[in-house]
């Protein structure tokens, strides 16, 4: 059977680890565009990699042949020949793809963890075929050491659902093509019940000095903060969007089990990456807290998570400079100048009120290192 060509921008966690489970390598030839030259060379040299999916107590392996991995800008020839394009490059890089998307006619499925980006891209390019998708899984950009010995390009994912806009339904895959209303509900749950507590767990893990997310969740105080923030998100979504409580509870339980899953080996560095993006006013930390307050909920645990994000330290992260700002500015200046909260805002005042208590919690975790 002749296979169709699929072009994936980004050979990271989702692009390499999860997409092959959705669009089977039996049916599609995999072409990648990847800016990381070491990874690109490795993929072109080995011509395949392994994606491991967690089962109850072990893994299933999927061998994925790689037709070619291009440097950005070198993919023009194959672009004319693909049946679909999938993007998993991250919200900061996604806008750079605008020139590419102006003239292609095949579906562009965006897995960028930001529901606004596909719409912006549709508007900017005039291309109506750009749609949003939600990979409802955690995928690690790396794997356990013993799996990496088997295949240095191995990544780990888990069983989950790939929710994609029904406008891309012509692309056959193991996924749920849904209408935009259902996609919005899934996105709200993903953004607040998954993304918010997920990054909080990572920031707490950074403070604890551990490598993987499940290691952070093994610490009782960290686990209780994450679970507390998740409950705050449940209450907020029930109040704000009137989402069914049973669905929210199901979602929370699923997420907590994922965070605690020791087989996933989800790296703290990946999940905590770019704290300033997560602290943006419409994103999972400050945005979520504002939404809680608008619904009459004081997000006590979320505010501890926000403080953990403020205290993030990693010399490899693009936002490594957050540590200089937190150390050099008083809390009032930090919140006003860097986080851009106004002095009249409730969240500004609540964060200030709980500043010392939250710092004490962070210090308690730090002492556990």
């Amino acid at each position: 059977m002749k296979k169709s060509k699929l072009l994936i921008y980004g050979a990271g966690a989702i692009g390499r680890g999860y997409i092959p489970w959705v669009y089977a390598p039996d049916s599609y030839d995999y072409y990648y565009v990847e800016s990381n030259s070491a990874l690109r060379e490795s993929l072109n040299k080995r011509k395949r990699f392994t994606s491991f999916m967690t089962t109850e107590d072990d893994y299933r392996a999927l061998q994925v042949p790689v037709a070619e991995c291009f440097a950005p800008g070198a993919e023009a020839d194959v672009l004319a020949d693909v049946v679909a394009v999938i993007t998993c490059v991250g919200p900061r890089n996604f806008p750079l793809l605008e020139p590419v998307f102006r003239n292609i006619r095949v579906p562009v499925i965006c897995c960028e963890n930001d529901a606004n980006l596909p719409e912006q891209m549709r508007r900017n390019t005039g291309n109506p075929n750009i749609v949003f998708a939600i990979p409802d899984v955690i995928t690690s950009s790396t794997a356990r050491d013993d799996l990496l010995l088997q295949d240095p390009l191995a990544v780990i994912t888990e069983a989950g659902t790939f929710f994609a806009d029904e406008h891309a339904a012509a692309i056959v895959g193991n996924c749920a093509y849904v209408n935009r209303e259902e996609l919005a509900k899934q996105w709200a749950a993903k953004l607040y019940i998954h993304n918010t507590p997920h990054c909080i767990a990572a920031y707490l893990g950074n403070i604890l000095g551990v490598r993987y997310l499940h290691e952070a969740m093994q610490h009782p105080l960290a686990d209780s903060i994450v679970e507390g923030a998740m409950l705050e998100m449940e209450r907020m979504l029930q109040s704000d969007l009137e989402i069914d409580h049973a669905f929210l509870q199901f979602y929370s339980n699923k997420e907590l089990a994922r965070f605690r899953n020791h087989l996933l080996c989800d790296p703290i560095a990946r999940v905590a990456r770019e704290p300033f993006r997560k602290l943006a006013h419409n994103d999972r930390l400050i945005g979520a807290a504002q939404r809680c307050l608008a619904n009459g909920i004081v997000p006590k645990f979320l505010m501890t998570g926000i403080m953990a994000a403020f205290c993030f330290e990693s010399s490899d992260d693009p936002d490594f400079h957050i540590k200089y700002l937190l150390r050099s500015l008083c809390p009032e200046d930090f919140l006003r100048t860097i986080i851009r909260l106004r002095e009249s805002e409730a969240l500004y005042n609540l964060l200030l009120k709980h500043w010392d208590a939250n710092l004490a919690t962070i210090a308690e975790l730090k002492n556990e290192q």
Partner: protein
Amino acid sequence: MNNEKLLEVAISAAVRAGACLMESYLQVIPVTRKESSRDVATPVDQTAEREVFALLRAYDDDISILSEEHGFQGRDNGRGHWVVDALDGTVNYLHQVPFFSVSVAYVFEGVTQVGVVYAPLVDDIYYGARGIGAFKNQRSIASPDSSPRDSLFAATFSGKNYEPHQRQEEFALFSAVNDQSRGCLRTGSAALNLAYLAEGRFNGCWGKANKAWDISAGLLLAELAGADVLVVERDAQRHLLHYLAAPTQNFEWLKGQLTSLFSVDGLAGSGMRKVES
């Protein structure tokens, strides 16, 4: 102290000074004329400067500081010195033109290591250090290149009538740059001009006979953001400098336009020293 610690101290000092400036902004302020009607001082400059000094000395009592209001203070202890302008753009501040800033830099062995420019009215902190990078608030910044025709420039001339007979030449240079580009602005704050260059809002900056405290921090930010920088020491005792900073294409073009200020020939026998990044 290493550059990380120096950067943190510089950010604290700049923001502290900015808070002082904002306390008195829009109020009636007495003015003292210095070398010309454009070179003025106010009690606000002095208060803000004192705040900066106090903060810097809280971190290290044995420091040297070069500042607008007090000149050089301290001793040569071999550990470098701070360069402070607690209010760059005093005339704008007095006239409530929202373009003024605080500038704090740290210089070691003649090389600026750390620079912070803070615009308190809009709460923007531009900061950077060698080995660390250049940033504005949350994000790292870069100075993209463009053609002169598509560029906006900013210039600063000394307000001290240092060489009044050369005023015509200054304005001729200004016109030449202004007429061949999207414009050349005279904003009144060299520090903020250079911060804007580092961020890519301006595409090149140049100045004649500017004081070191006006431009030390900004020049470092521009350099760290990718701009080429040229500094000519005009008068070491008075800390007067000519400078040019721009991404490569505009740097070469501006250098060609401003030959009388920056050519090697022009420096011969003048006693001026040239430093190129």
